[in-house]
């Protein structure tokens, strides 16, 4: 049997990617944990004992119950309850969902911007390149978190609290996407610079293809693996940025909490001894970010693209 006749699945099973994945225990464990968390978050309405968005299911009498295993715990709330009497397990599942949604959405947006600007800068060169990369440099020197905080602050001041709360998810995706595109643009530009010297690009030019077609149909597919690696790490960064913005009160409102706003609302009660309201969502956030980072490290080692060079 030749490779050409192998099915996609078989080709995947014989690939180097699968081979190195099977041999790397850290990657396997991280992947399993991540899949588990993503599934739990996506199907939160099925798993969660209560719906934290539904005010009818919340009883203020149940507020600040500790997790099971401590004195005064109620077995109906395995991870305890928060100050409003919401079940922590349910709010964390729904919160992870919001955090993942924002992280993923922000990376899609920044990848779109980064790929577009990176391709333009790398392929066209000249003035376009220097203007785009100068903007990227300046933005990076301000640090992505700082840019996100400033943009978030301006948006919040101009939309007002209520309005901002309603469209917070889209706002956060937009803010984080805008703040972090330079990372991807730089990576794309570096690979485009290497690709555009190759013969197939010359061939395409000789055949008279338009610039757009060469950029998106010929060069882009060959720059995908570094984009893939950096996008993985960027999801973790976006989740942290979202948590930071929400913690500062520039993110998700308490009625529709993400992991960051759960940590924020729990922090007000830490002095009264209710550590679980803030520390359990915090632990979930750290585990989520850690497994994504570890997977990103592994992917980088396997695909070994030249990141950040050029």
């Amino acid at each position, binding site marked *: 049997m030749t490779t050409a006749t192998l099915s996609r699945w078989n080709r995947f099973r014989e690939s180097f990617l699968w081979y190195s994945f099977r041999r790397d225990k850290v990657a396997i464990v991280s992947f399993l944990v991540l899949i588990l968390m993503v599934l739990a978050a996506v199907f939160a309405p099925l798993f969660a004992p209560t719906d934290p968005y539904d005010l009818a299911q919340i009883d203020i009498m149940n507020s600040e119950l500790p997790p099971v295993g401590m004195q005064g715990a109620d077995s109906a709330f395995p991870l305890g309850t928060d100050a409003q009497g919401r079940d922590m397990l349910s709010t964390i599942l729904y919160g992870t969902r919001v955090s993942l949604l924002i992280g993923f959405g922000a990376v899609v947006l920044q990848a779109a911007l980064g790929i577009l600007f990176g391709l333009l800068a790398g392929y066209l060169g000249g003035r376009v390149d220097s203007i785009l990369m100068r903007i990227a440099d300046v933005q990076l020197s301000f*640090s992505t978190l700082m840019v996100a905080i400033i943009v978030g602050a301006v948006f919040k001041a*101009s939309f007002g609290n209520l309005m901002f709360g309603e469209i917070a998810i889209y706002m956060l995706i937009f803010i984080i996407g805008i703040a972090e595109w330079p990372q991807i643009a730089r990576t794309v530009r570096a690979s485009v610079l290497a690709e555009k010297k190759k013969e197939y690009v010359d061939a395409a030019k000789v055949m008279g293809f338009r610039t757009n077609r060469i950029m998106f149909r010929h060069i882009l597919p060959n720059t995908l693996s570094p984009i893939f690696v950096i996008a993985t790490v960027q999801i*973790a960064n976006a989740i942290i940025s979202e*948590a*930071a913005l929400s913690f500062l009160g520039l993110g998700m409102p308490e009625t529709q909490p993400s992991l960051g706003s759960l940590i924020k609302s729990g922090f007000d009660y830490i002095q009264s*001894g209710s550590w679980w309201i803030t*520390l359990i969502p915090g632990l979930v956030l750290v585990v989520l970010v850690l497994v994504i980072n570890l997977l990103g490290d592994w992917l980088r080692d396997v695909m070994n693209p030249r990141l950040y060079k050029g």
Partner: protein
Amino acid sequence: MLAFLVQRISQALLVMFVISVIAFAIQDGLGDPLQEMVGMSVSQEEREALREELGLNDSIVVQYLRFAGKAIQGDLGNSYFYGKPTLEVISEHLPATLELVIGASLIIMLLSVPIGVYAAIRPQALMAKFFMGVSTVGISIPVFLTAIVLIQIYSIGITVEWFPVDTGWGQWLNGALSTEGGLPSYGRGDDLTHLFGTWYSGFFSESGLLHLILPCVSLASIMLPLFIRLIRAEMMEVLQSDYIRYARAKGLSAVRINFLHALKNTMLPVITVGGVQVGVMVAYTILTETVFQWPGVGLMFLEAITRSDIPLIVAYLMVVGLIFVVTNTLVDLVYGLVNPTVKLTGKKA
């Protein structure tokens, strides 16, 4: 060198110009100064007259030029909330933030160099692997979470009752895992020493220093892993180079090679990166100050946002922008001075 200097400074001016345009756009787009100044009872004609007098009917360009002209003279308007010049408000809050950054930088410098060098010299040692593992995890922990955990452990204290209390070992384990708490986790304390101008320092009294511990450790914790990794990577590269091998062949002592010859060349890129990290540090001070209610510029900025204190927001942006631009330009210039291999003029490689 002169061309390099001119290029960098003109670039810095350009960035500062862009920041001022953004700041002006925010001020122009978000606030109607008239509404802040007059009540409902003022008639339409009076409003129009006041508009004309304040120059709000002038073209955008004229208004921007007026804004920029005032900004250069150090006049960024009055804060709505504090009722005094914004720059005065910022200068009152700046020392607190600076002391936080100084304390955190001290911790970073004192810890990252020895740990990074050790991890580079003995990459296989158990301790080195432990430090690298901790720093990988450390990078994944947001600064406000570290701060909250620190508050729980060292300020509130934890009581562990997992082990049987009636046995000696159980009591001992419970005691060993529990903490007293008691460190202050709120503000700067009230025993501050007046240095000069608006600078009241917490470095000279016991209460001031105690209040500094947790915020500084939190702020340091987020930057520390980065610096340890950087120093380790740079040091390992330097240790591979020819002159180190030559020094070894010459029979110099390991201490002399590692700390005199290798460390010197390791620190150059580290200092550059450190300078650039100032930007990241400012963002993290906002988070740290929020957790500890530290009365610095970060907390002031956040409060200005909730109070819609537009002039103060704008002034903060301008001041922070200036700090960024100045440090980045200085770092670039210093790097160009110390490292002769850097491309001075914008020649194509």
